[in-house]
């Protein structure tokens, strides 16, 4: 007994010793920054790096009344919900196609996944050249077909959908892989039983596959929403937020306020608000998702 006690104590001591670097790391690079961000949001000007004055919650009040903040928020929500929805549907569709007896499925999987691991810097460059209103191949193809050319990224009506399209192009392969893994873990006996009961392939998909995939869908939706709500690279690299703020993703808006305008206090308040919004949206998804899963 005494021996096992010392073993336990010794194990606890070892555990804490081994965790020291991790504890420091997460405190310094995660928890302290959040506290610092909140503290900075209570000041006007350049808290932490320059001149500032205590302002209480006035940054938050100002943000709520700021028309550009509201517009950016709407743009970001449309972008995040749209891109997430399209990514999930495309990913599931591709996975369903590849789950059948398809020759060369390894090849298709690899090629379709590939855009996901490419830097947004390259993706921006590629798509900007393809969509260029004067020299791009897309408009070239449209003209060749006798259709009017479009200013894809320069038109207020088409810029945001185009940006969403590029994001889905990049991310669909990731969702596809996750769905494929989930599909392959469903026992084939389930489908055999359903066939014996006379269920058509469509019914099997609707009443068997989809419910069994609910946990996977929840995972893909949550990851995708968190990613897209905080994304700023496409706006920064492809459209610079324009035209007329039509693609002003919130992350990019905050980034400009902080690093271009050096309005640190205001930017901190905005990003803290975004943090709370992302937490709330994630919590709602888990709530809805777990209810679905129980059913």
């Amino acid at each position, binding site marked *: 007994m005494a021996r096992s006690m010392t073993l336990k104590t010794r*194990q*606890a001591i*070892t*555990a804490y010793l*081994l*965790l020291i*670097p*991790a504890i420091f*790391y*997460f405190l*310094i*690079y*995660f*928890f*302290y920054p*959040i506290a610092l961000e909140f503290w900075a949001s209570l000041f006007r000007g350049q808290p*932490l*790096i320059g001149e500032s004055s205590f302002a209480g919650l006035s940054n938050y009040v100002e943000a709520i009344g700021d028309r550009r903040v509201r517009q950016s928020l709407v743009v970001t929500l449309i972008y995040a919900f749209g891109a997430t929805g399209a990514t999930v549907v495309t990913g599931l569709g*591709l996975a369903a*196609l590849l789950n*059948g007896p*398809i020759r060369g499925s*390894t090849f*298709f999987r*690899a*090629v*379709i*996944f590939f855009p996901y*691991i*490419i*830097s947004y*810097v*390259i993706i921006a*460059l*590629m*798509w900007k*050249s393809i969509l260029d209103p*004067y*020299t791009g*191949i897309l*408009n*070239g193809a449209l003209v060749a077909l006798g259709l009017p050319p479009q200013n894809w990224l320069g038109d207020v009506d088409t810029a945001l959908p185009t940006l969403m399209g590029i994001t889905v*192009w990049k991310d669909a392969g*990731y969702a596809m*892989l*996750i769905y494929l*893994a989930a599909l392959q873990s469903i026992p084939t006996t389930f489908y055999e039983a359903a066939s014996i009961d006379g269920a058509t392939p469509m019914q099997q998909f609707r009443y068997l596959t989809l419910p069994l995939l609910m946990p996977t869908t929840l*995972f893909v939706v949550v990851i995708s929403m*968190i990613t897209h709500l*905080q994304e700023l690279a496409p706006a920064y*690299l492809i459209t610079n937020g324009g035209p007329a703020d039509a693609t002003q993703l919130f*992350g990019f808006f*905050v*980034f400009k306020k*902080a690093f271009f305008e050096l309005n640190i206090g205001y*930017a901190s308040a905005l*990003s803290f608000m975004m*943090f709370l919004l*992302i937490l709330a949206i*994630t919590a709602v998804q888990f709530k809805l998702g777990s209810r679905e899963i129980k059913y």
Partner: protein
Amino acid sequence: MSRLTPILSYLLLGLCTLLCVVPFAYMLSLSLQSDAELMSGLPVLIPEKLQFSNYVAIWERAPFGRFILNSLIIAGGITLLHLIFDPLVGYVFAKLEFPGKKILFGAVLSTLMIPFFIRLIPLYIITAEFGWLNTYPGLIMPFAMSAYGIFLMRQFIAPIPSELLDAARIDGCSEMRIYWQIVLPQVRPALATLALLTFVFQWNEFLWPLVVVSTTEMRPITTGLTLFTQETFTQWNLTSAGGVLLFLPSLALFLFTQRYLVRSVMLAGMK
């Protein structure tokens, strides 16, 4: 009907494959076009004469060798730190008993929900406090570990039978030796997964270097290329050549590891 479905599947998959390949092929094509072909106003798919001189021209305008070296140091350094710390912390959470374990593990996992741009301003300030602006430690340290990697490693270490570890303990084996000689060799495939995913994603990191780096020589290839594309804005042939340079290492890594990488993502997503 049933004979049509496979044809339709191949048609759809073929279309998606084209959609994924064409942009890259077009970038390659652009990078080899002459100025005249670009200005012709007609989209060119296959350049008449391959202008390899574009690739020479961009090396004269920007230190791409240095950019690539920086990317290797940064992504490599981060990957190394992940390989040291993530499995170690994962082991502690998977196999050791101590008070406060649940709370600490929960705290680590909760960091997954913290978006990066919310930490951006404070991270800049902390890095400045350390005197690490525009240095390799400043570029590497904020990504030294990840809750994702720790969680992944814990999932792989947990199934190792505890009896095995207990037997070693009774024989007087220290915790570090158990970790080093019993646990680590068993999770080698997971370590490879972790290394690949970490390297690929850090190679692409663009926002943090944009904020921390202030001189051209310290830029990794992502922000190096951004600088370059801003300067040669309308010359699609030159910027595309730069894009191909940044893209080739990713492609090579992908081709050599694609089977493995694709499987890792499927596995990592499942856990």
